[in-house]
């Protein structure tokens, strides 16, 4: 069995901005191995988030492919692509993107709820709550489980987002500037958490503009003007 988990080949993506077309990605290719912590670095507007969205199947490329476990994501039927988003990948956003009406525990559970019908949820409810509670404990938020996002700090919100990304035990965690909205201390804590997860076997692809944050990764790639280049060495 190949150790390669994800491979992107020749990704092109452009957006229309009024009359002009902005070419964000111009033939980007990358691959990630199982258990790897990969950082994609780049300045603001370099196309990092766009790349991550394509890797997470949240958007469609104009050209190119993304293969996950040797399956072309954009050749899959919609339902299989949704299952990929829900079970194979966990997404951590820069702005957390938590649902404001739900408390921390429910925000974690929502990813699990999406996989279940009303009938199957009855059987899985107890275990799911236990799993979500355990994850919140793991990210240090056991006592904040009943708090809504508005009652949590930025760092706490990001921890909830990480717990949500992990609740379906995805093989791949995609993190989009996970510390971009946090101060250095809290950002450090979040990176510590990600490193810890990676050491426990979690594959992570992270995009960041911060070289210090990227230094936690095994491998760093540089994205500039929509073109990818090797940007660093293995930290181990």
């Amino acid at each position, binding site marked *: 069995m190949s150790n390669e988990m994800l491979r992107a080949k020749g990704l092109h993506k452009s957006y229309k901005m009024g009359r002009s077309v902005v070419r964000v990605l111009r033939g980007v290719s990358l691959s990630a191995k199982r258990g790897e912590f990969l950082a994609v670095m780049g300045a603001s507007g370099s196309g990092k988030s766009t790349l991550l969205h394509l890797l997470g199947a*949240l*958007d469609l490329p104009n050209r190119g492919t993304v293969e996950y476990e040797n399956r072309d994501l954009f050749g899959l039927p919609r339902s299989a692509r*949704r299952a990929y*988003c829900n079970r194979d990948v966990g997404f951590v956003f820069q702005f957390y*993107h*938590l649902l404001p*009406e739900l408390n921390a525990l429910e925000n974690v559970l*929502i990813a699990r709820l*999406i*996989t279940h019908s009303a009938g199957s949820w009855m059987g899985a409810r107890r275990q799911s709550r236990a799993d979500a509670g355990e994850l919140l404990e793991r990210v240090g938020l056991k006592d904040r489980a009943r708090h809504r996002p508005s009652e949590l700090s930025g760092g706490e919100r990001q921890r909830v987002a990480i717990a949500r990304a992990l609740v379906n035990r995805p093989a791949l965690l995609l993190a989009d500037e996970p510390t971009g909205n946090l101060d250095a201390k809290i950002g450090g804590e979040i990176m510590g958490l990600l490193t810890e997860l990676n050491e426990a076997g979690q594959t992570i692809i992270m995009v960041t503009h911060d070289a210090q944050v990227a230094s936690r990764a095994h491998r760093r790639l540089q994205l500039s003007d929509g073109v990818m280049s090797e940007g660093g060495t293995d930290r181990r």
Partner: protein
Amino acid sequence: MYKWFLAWRYLHTKLIAFFGVASVMLCVAMVLVVMSVMGGFLDTVRERSRGMLSDVVLEAGSMQGFPYYEEFETYVAKHMSDIVAVTTPTIVNYGLIRVPDTSQTKPAQIVGVRLNEYCTINDFKGGLHYEEYFPGTTTLAKQPIAVAGLDPNTEKLSLPPELEAANRKWQESVGDPEEIEKYESLPYATSAFPKTAAPYYYDRVFAADIGEPKYEGPEHMGLIVGSDVLWDRDKQGGFKRYLARGTRLALTVLPLTPSGTLTGEPPVRIPLRYADDSRTGIFEIDSMCVYVDFDMLQQKLAMDAQEKIDGGFTKPRAKQLLIGLKEGVDLDEGWARVQAGWLNFLATLGPNVDDGDMTRLGFVDVYTWEDLQRPLIAAIEKEKVLVTILFGLISLVAIVLLGCIFYMIVEKKTKDIGILKSLGASGRGVAGLFVVYAAAIGVVGAALGTLLGSAFVWNINTIQDKLAQLNPALKVWSPDVYSFDKIPEVVKQQDAMWIAIVAVIASMVGSLIPAFLAARVWPVKALRYE
């Protein structure tokens, strides 16, 4: 599963949900109130108009009536006793009613009835005023005037013993001391002459004297007047009875020959005594009809058996033959049997029937009571449909508003849609979330609206009274106009259920377009939305 969970959360955490619930609630309440009041109005008219007739009516095509009604009664008794409970003939004619004491003259529709039979065939008895307080005393037969006087034993003003005994029977049947006390406290009129200019009016109006209670004056046949023929109403809907029971009245009628021409005799004046007043609750009937004895009227109108110039007698005539069906007999089936029976009966009459009589029999039709009251019922039915359509249109506006509210919700929740989709939720699932949310708003709004509407209808008269206390101009229901004392205050469960179901469906329909739009949003686009 997340659809139900999030819909529930949105429902009780979003202020905007409150507006959705409020608009559904108000629409449901509004339509329920309109349908209940108009439906109640219609039901009351139907019920009361039925009360004046019988299930099936055999009616002559013209005023001079039709012959052989007695023979047909015998035929019915012999051949249709399995479905027919009772038959009674009536005469309907027009004339003038006069109150000699006041020289007041009015046009009237004169109905000749056999009171005992008439009261068994419909609810006429229930609408008689004095019959309620003095059961068994209302008659169309010959009668003098009862004069209240001082009882030598009790020294109290009282009526002759038969009337006092009848009143005691009423008191025993009522049992409510408060109601009895209220009635007892009402005074009698204080002179034999009715107080035409009296500043007050009373619910029991008898002539009174300082002598002993007695009957006096010549005996005349009785007359029951429609409650709105002679009396005006007060603001509470009560009648200003200013004539004492037993007061002399007179009817003037114009007899017709069997062929419908005038007999050549002068109009007939019939002296009568005011025996009671009747209230069916339908203004058109109560403001026009007076009731007298059938046989007396038949004779006065020369509709009884008259000697012919060439020998023999004409056949007595009636305008209608009322046929009461037995309990449980279907109206349409009963009508069909009577119709067939009538045709069979005509076939049995043979060649001896006078040509003129045959022509008159040819114009006799068999109707159900609904057929005869169709113009009255149809008008109110149309009114109900019209008002319901108008309020339905208003509700349509509410549905559009609901659609707008949902559009705003979807706009506001675009980011949530992005989050859910990035977590693997399908477009159909996200659309379902908003439809479930709309259904939840619809269910809550419909339930609250049903409660609000029902509470409003049940208390509509109290609410109106309170409003009228604040400003008399706010009293919208005038018993004087509508004939009913009260606004109908019955909510039909079936109506309430249908309105609620339509409201829930309407809410869901209102959410469909926004839900469809939500389903099409790409997660990345939605996540970028600020």
